[in-house]
């Protein structure tokens, strides 16, 4: 028992989300509400109830009945799609917010790294910020003093250590922030997506440091979208879905499961999908992809044109004044790659729409490398989110003759293909 570092039992967290639409049925209700509302809110305030000035009506469970154990020295990755509850879990474990029910026992000092450079003040110098930030992260002053030179060297800011941080480049600020955090020595380290910032050299350095921390035998909880980093750093992974633990196990198993689940979900009929957001005034009912010959398909050779046809239905028979639609394309790891959005491409044109209809997005020469992708649909009606479906469809990009040369670069050299051409001209010395 004594080698347990973190034990969570039935952890749950609910948020009350304010519902603002369709609350007033008529004008009189609205007037009455505006008069009585303040009194009710003041009453709540004095009782010390949480959840602020928002009129809370609906409970949203960010986490539901989460249980797991992590042993000392384990490096555990937490993965899941957006909204799966990863960040909420980290916030609870780092004591920033409280669970609604359940508990977690933590054996050891926890260092939380949810952001690089928390509490940095732009007016203070690098030196001053190291002390401030270090103290905020839970280091003793003597500890900071001892590691000061090491931190400065890691951040590579020796020359600017007595310059106010507001004069730093953003890269320097990040480096300094990470350097302080990297020199924390808690038994349990909780890390959120911080590696997603900075240039690739810096990211590499951060991941290297994380690996070092892991080898020292400390316990690390690591949330990331970067599956490569999770796979490299973590021995075990926990996959969250909709606020519950979907599966746990060795990192490679869990990542495989994660990729497969993305695929399954995209094959469900849009009409049947329950995991949608929005007020429902409009609903997506169908999505098809047509290739340049007009045939329905789910795979397009790279470089080819295609159409995305999306059917929608309205709850009423009124014509729709103002609609905005987007299709976001993400890779199998859930990273958004590009967004096809009418407000960007041809704003103001989707006006006066029929209550039921079909939206078509024409895409010229797809530039994604051959792989599997997922399309997330988003529909706004009169400025409010009407319907949103994550991974509404799967799109496979096939090998194609993108460059007209019959060749494609290997996939590890990038996610995109870009039309280009090399040429050469002679330089004459002395000119």
């Amino acid at each position, binding site marked *: 028992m*004594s*080698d347990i570092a973190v034990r969570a039992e039935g952890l749950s967290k609910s*948020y009350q989300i304010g519902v603002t639409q369709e609350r007033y049925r008529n004008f009189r209700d609205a007037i009455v509400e505006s008069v009585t509302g303040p009194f009710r809110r003041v009453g709540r*305030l004095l009782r*010390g109830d*949480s*959840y*602020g*000035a928002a009129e809370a009506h609906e409970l949203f469970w960010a986490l539901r009945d989460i249980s797991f154990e992590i*042993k*000392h*020295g*384990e*490096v555990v990755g937490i993965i899941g799609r957006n909204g799966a509850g990863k960040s909420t879990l980290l*916030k609870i*474990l*780092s*004591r*920033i*917010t*409280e*669970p*609604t*029910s*359940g*508990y*977690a*026992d*933590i*054996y*050891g*000092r*926890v260092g*939380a790294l949810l*952001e690089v450079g*928390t*509490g940095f*003040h732009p*007016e*203070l110098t690098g030196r*001053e910020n190291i*002390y*401030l930030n270090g*103290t*905020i992260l*839970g280091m*003793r*002053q003597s500890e900071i003093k001892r590691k000061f030179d090491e931190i400065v060297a890691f951040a590579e800011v020796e020359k600017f250590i007595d310059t106010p941080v507001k004069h730093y480049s953003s890269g320097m600020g990040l480096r300094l922030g990470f350097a302080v955090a990297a020199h924390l020595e808690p*038994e349990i380290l909780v890390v959120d997506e911080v590696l997603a910032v900075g240039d690739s050299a810096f990211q590499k350095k951060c991941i*290297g440091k994380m*690996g070092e921390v*892991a*080898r020292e*035998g400390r316990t690390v909880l690591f949330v990331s979208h970067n599956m*490569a*980093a999770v796979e*490299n*750093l973590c*021995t075990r992974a926990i996959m969250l879905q909709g606020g519950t633990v979907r599966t746990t196990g060795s990192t490679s198993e869990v990542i495989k499961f994660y990729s497969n689940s993305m695929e399954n979900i995209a094959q469900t009929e849009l009409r049947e999908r329950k995991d949608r957001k929005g007020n429902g005034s409009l609903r997506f009912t169908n999505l098809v992809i047509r290739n340049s010959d007009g045939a329905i398909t789910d795979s397009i050779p790279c470089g080819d044109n295609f159409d995305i046809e999306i059917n929608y239905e309205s709850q009423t028979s009124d014509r729709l004044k103002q609609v905005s639609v987007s299709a976001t394309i993400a890779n199998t790891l859930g990273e958004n790659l590009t967004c096809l959005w009418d407000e960007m491409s041809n704003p103001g044109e989707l006006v006066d729409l029929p209550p039921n209809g079909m939206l078509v997005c024409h895409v010229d020469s797809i530039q994604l490398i051959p792989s599997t992708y997922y399309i997330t649909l988003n529909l706004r009606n009169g400025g409010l989110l009407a319907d949103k479906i994550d991974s509404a469809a799967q799109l496979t990009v096939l090998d194609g003759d993108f460059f007209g040369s019959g060749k494609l670069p290997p996939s*590890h050299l990038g996610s995109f293909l870009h039309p280009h051409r090399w040429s050469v001209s002679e330089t004459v010395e002395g000119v």
Partner: protein
Amino acid sequence: MTLLQKTEEREIVPNGKIDTYPVIRIKPSPRWVSLQLNVLWEYRELLYFLVWRDIKVRYKQTILGATWAIIQPFLTMVVFSLFFGRLAGIPSDGIPYPIFSYAALVPWTFFSNGLQNSSQSLVLGANLIKKIYFPRLLMPTAAVVGGIVDFGLSFAVLLLMMVYFGIVPTVNAIWLPVFLLLALITSLGVGLWLSAMNVQFRDVRYIVPFLTQFWMFATPIAYPSSLIENPLLRAIYGINPMTGVVEGFRWALLGTDNPPGATIVVSFVVAVILLFTGAFYFRRTEKSFADVV
């Protein structure tokens, strides 16, 4: 895509110091929570750094710098002397009106700035609250304590004015720290209430200026409390703890001949009640700060 070698062999048990790990249980807090004063003590270094940051940053990029700490009460004193002292002829217990009002404005400015800063502290520090754990009580506390430096500066001017007006402080001056403490407790007590409320209801931002203005006129700053002759009524006047502070300052420094005994006692009782209720209210609402702010 190997960014680094996979880590295989790793000691599961670091340093073999299992028994020494502190154990924390994270669970929903009960309706009645303790004040956790021991945790505050644990985090004293952070309190020090928060205060230090406040002081260090306060007058950055201003032309007049720390002079602002003096200008604030001093100009108010000038205005009061003109309108209340000269024009309205308000009595000042036989002391020159400028120093009579300034001796009150120095602790008052400390109080009202502390109140303003602490009530805003959580909202302005939202970024910190959302990203890291520490006892949230530190934020409003640091905001009030940080005012000590400003107080010191304006107090130095008060001493200069005493030299100018030829007023020798009495031995009662040793009680000054007590009255300063009273101002601090009051400021923090109200600051805790307001800062916690401000997290959920941004109305507080609009209330604070009114509150301090009304409170100022409810405190004998522009006028002496000797206007109230009934001793019982004067003790009741002490329900406003700032009355005790202001009367105390004048008594200790300027030797106004009415030792504010009963008033002070009432003031202290009220201030301590404010502090404790404020701290409990704060602790009770604290759990939702990160979700709401």
